[in-house]
C-alpha cells in the first residue's frame, strides 16, 4: 500500500557558518533492504501518543522539534539532551515532549527514520523511543550508507525486532503520525530543526546555556 520512493541522491550542500558544529545528512536512498527481513509485515498507523518524558504535571514543558537526518539535531541530541535529561527530566522538573519535524533534510531518511522510531515507541514505551532515537543520532551518517540495516541494528539493541522496525521505515508505516507532528510545527512557526520551545515560547538557540537559562527562568 505504501510506496517506497527510491530517488536519486541529492547532495545537500550548504554554507557552513563559523559556529556550525555539524552538517546535515546528504540525501540518499542508499542501503538495500535486508533480504532476510523480506516478508515482514507491519500495519499502517495513523495515531500514536506523543513521546514524552517527565511528569505530566511538571511545572515546565519543553517541546523539541527534530529531523532525524539533521546534523544539528544529532548535535543537540548527543551534546545538549543528556544535560537536559540529568538536570531537569530525571528530577521531574520538566515534561519533555518530542515532535517529528522532517524538513526534510533528506527526502527519504528523514521520513523513514521517523517512522522507525515511532514503530519502536508503538511496541515499547517513550523511554525506549528516546533510546532508539539517540542510537540513530549517534551514528546518523549510516542512514545514508546502509540505512535499513542500521535501523535494524539499533532496534535490536533496544530489544525490538529489527526486521519489523526496518519494514516500518521502508513502508513509512507511521507517516501520518509524523506528518501530523510536522503540521504542528508549521502551525507554531518552527523555522528549522532542532527547534526548542519552553512553555510554548520559541528559544532562539539550541545550545545548552540558552536552553537551560530559559528553563530556569520558568522554574523560578
Amino acid at each position: 500500500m505504501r510506496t517506497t520512493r527510491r530517488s536519486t541522491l541529492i547532495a545537500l550542500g550548504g554554507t557552513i557558518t563559523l559556529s556550525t558544529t555539524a552538517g546535515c545528512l546528504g540525501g540518499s536512498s542508499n542501503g538495500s533492504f535486508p533480504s532476510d527481513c523480506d516478508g515482514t509485515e507491519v500495519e499502517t498507523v495513523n495515531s500514536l501518543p506523543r513521546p514524552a518524558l517527565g511528569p505530566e504535571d511538571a511545572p515546565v514543558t519543553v517541546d523539541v522539534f527534530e529531523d532525524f537526518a539533521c546534523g544539528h539535531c544529532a548535535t543537540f541530541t548527543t551534546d545538549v539532551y543528556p544535560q537536559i535529561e540529568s538536570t531537569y527530566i530525571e528530577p521531574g522538573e520538566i515534561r519533555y515532549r518530542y515532535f517529528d519535524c522532517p524538513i526534510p533534510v533528506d527526502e527519504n531518511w528523514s521520513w523513514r527514520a521517523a517512522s522507525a522510531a515511532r514503530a519502536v515507541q508503538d511496541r515499547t514505551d517513550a523511554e525506549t523511543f528516546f533510546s532508539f532515537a539517540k542510537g540513530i543520532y549517534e551514528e546518523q551518517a549510516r542512514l545514508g550508507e546502509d540505512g535499513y540495516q542500521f535501523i535494524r541494528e539499533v532496534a535490536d539493541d533496544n530489544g525490538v525486532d529489527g526486521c519489523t522496525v526496518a519494514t516500518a521505515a521502508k513502508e513509512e508505516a507511521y507517516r501520518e503520525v509524523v506528518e501530523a507532528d510536522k503540521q504542528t510545527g508549521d502551525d507554531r512557526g518552527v523555522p528549522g530543526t532542532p527547534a526548542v520551545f519552553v512553555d510554548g515560547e520559541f528559544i532562539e538557540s539550541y545550545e545548552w546555556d540558552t536552553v537551560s537559562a530559559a528553563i530556569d527562568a520558568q522554574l523560578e
Partner: protein
Amino acid sequence: MDDSGPGRRDVLIATSGVLTVAGCTNSAAVESGYGTAYGDAYGSE
C-alpha cells in the same frame, strides 16, 4: 593621511553578526520568512 578609515570599517562589518547558531531548514522556509529568529545562519543546510 586619514585614508585608513574605510579599511577598518570593512573589517568591523566583516566580523560582525556572524557567530550565530545554525540549524537545519530548507530554502522555501527561509524565503517565506521562517528563520528570522535564528538569524542568517539558519538555512545554511
